[in-house]
């Protein structure tokens, strides 16, 4: 099956055709925002990091910013730095350049202040938008999609209906040769043994168990317990009692495929099929990690309701809570509550979700895009220095 997508110079396929302005450091975020302001087709990343990070955090910030630049939903990139930061514009540009897309850099200290940088930047992105508009959509196999899966604001309906329905769609995409990302490690706690059994090799299974162990230990090292924050108050009001219950409902999003590999936060899958990305359960950090990993489209189930969206990837909101669908129409794309009313099967709902994925991949706007929900947050472990 095909969707209508954008073919990039590196052969990758996009579902959107954005021009992206990346501030390499928090200090240049204002300029990046000003450049994108009022420019149709231009999006900036509200990045506050890029300086004061060392070791793993520095790597993750770099990988995430590079990942957004290389994501095939992006046609061209302008990187704006300040000039004295640790993560330089050249470093990011160098990693994005092999995609063959246009990458430009501006450094505020070199250019000489905000106004000059914004004026130069606006000229550059105007050209980029002009060039991007020349590229049309063409039929591309859905097997080239990397689907991110996520649940947030969960209630009882998530585990009973919307997640299993997404699982059907995930299996369908894997069947078409596509890639599906399952993530949010704190929300597989209690279900990790079930997932490990589905791993392609014992080594991959061990990596899943090790990921859970890391999060448990990291929380304990901080004097906390993963269960202190999870389930969240809204989950509990919605009938979810323990983290294990939430996790068992959560993993149905992944369908029934073999777990091919475990990848780190913001990394691109190296195999097709179902892959596991080790991310936080924090909705926006998770979403950001999957999109940095090349995901061009995301499905997001919710019971209580969530407005979340990504700057560059469409995020389809699915709920099986009829009340939430009616109450938050601005944010909800699909209502699969008929499953719980016995009026539709999980597989029927899953097929509808798959069809919606293809339509949205081909250009149909999601509610999160219409509401300009461009949420962005990078996972970090250590204190800034």
């Amino acid at each position, binding site marked *: 099956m095909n969707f209508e997508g954008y073919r990039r110079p590196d052969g990758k396929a996009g579902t959107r055709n954005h021009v992206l302005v990346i501030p390499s450091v928090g200090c240049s975020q204002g300029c990046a925002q000003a450049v994108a302001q009022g420019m149709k087709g231009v999006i900036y990343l509200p990045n506050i990091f890029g300086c004061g990070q060392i070791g793993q955090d520095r790597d993750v910030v770099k990988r995430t910013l590079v990942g957004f630049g290389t994501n095939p939903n992006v046609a061209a990139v302008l990187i704006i730095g300040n000039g004295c930061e640790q993560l330089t514009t050249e470093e990011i540009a160098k990693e994005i350049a092999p995609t063959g897309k246009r990458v430009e850099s501006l450094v505020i200290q070199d250019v000489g202040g905000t106004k000059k940088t914004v004026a130069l930047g606006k000229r550059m992105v105007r050209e980029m938008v002009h060039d991007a508009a020349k590229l049309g959509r063409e039929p591309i196999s859905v097997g080239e999609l990397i689907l991110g899966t996520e649940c947030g604001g969960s*209630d*009882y*309906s998530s*585990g*009973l209906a919307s997640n*299993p329905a997404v*699982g*059907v769609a995930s299996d369908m995409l894997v069947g078409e040769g596509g890639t599906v990302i399952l993530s949010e490690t704190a929300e597989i706690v*209690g*279900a990790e043994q*079930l997932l490990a059994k589905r791993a392609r090799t014992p080594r991959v299974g061990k990596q899943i168990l090790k990921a859970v162990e890391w999060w*448990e230990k990291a929380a304990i090292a901080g004097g906390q*317990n993963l*269960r202190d924050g999870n389930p969240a108050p809204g989950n*509990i009001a*919605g*009938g979810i*009692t*323990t*983290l*294990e*219950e939430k996790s*068992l*409902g959560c993993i*149905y999003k992944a*369908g*029934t495929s073999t777990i091919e590999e475990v990848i780190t936060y913001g990394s691109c899958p190296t195999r097709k099929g179902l892959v596991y990305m080790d991310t936080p359960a924090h909705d926006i950090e998770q979403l950001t990690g999957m999109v940095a990993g090349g995901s061009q489209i995301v499905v997001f189930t919710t*019971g209580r309701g969530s407005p979340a969206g990504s700057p560059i990837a469409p995020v389809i909101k699915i709920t099986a809570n009829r009340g939430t669908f009616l109450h938050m129409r601005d944010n909800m794309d699909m209502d699969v509550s008929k*499953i*719980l*009313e*016995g009026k*539709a*099967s*999980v*597989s*029927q709902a899953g097929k509808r979700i798959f069809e919606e994925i293809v339509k949205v991949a081909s250009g149909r706007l999601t509610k999160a895009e219409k509401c300009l929900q461009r949420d962005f947050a990078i996972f970090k472990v250590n204190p800034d220095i």
Partner: protein
Amino acid sequence: MTHPLNPCIHQKGGAMRGKGSAIVIDEKDNVATALGPLKAGAEVSVEIRGKVEKRKVLSDIPMGHKFALKDIEKGAAVIKYGQPIGRSTVKIARGAHVHVHNVVSQPRGGEAR
């Protein structure tokens, strides 16, 4: 294709769905999930191992919340999706609300909190 959790969930008709009913996902489960708000004393039909059984709920159960299908001893596993979702902190009577007031998470190899 059947529901990955329970082949019964998408069959037309049946006593387990609709307002005021409840669902049991796996035959090993000792709790059911209310698919609508249930009033204290209400008789609810649930399908267990292919058989429709009645359960009387002992208190009001909000939509999406759980009640016990049978007596659950103190310290016993609470089972949903066929898997343990935690441990009971008190004896839970058949038909009683099962939630954070009487169930705790069970960290691997550690004490329940």
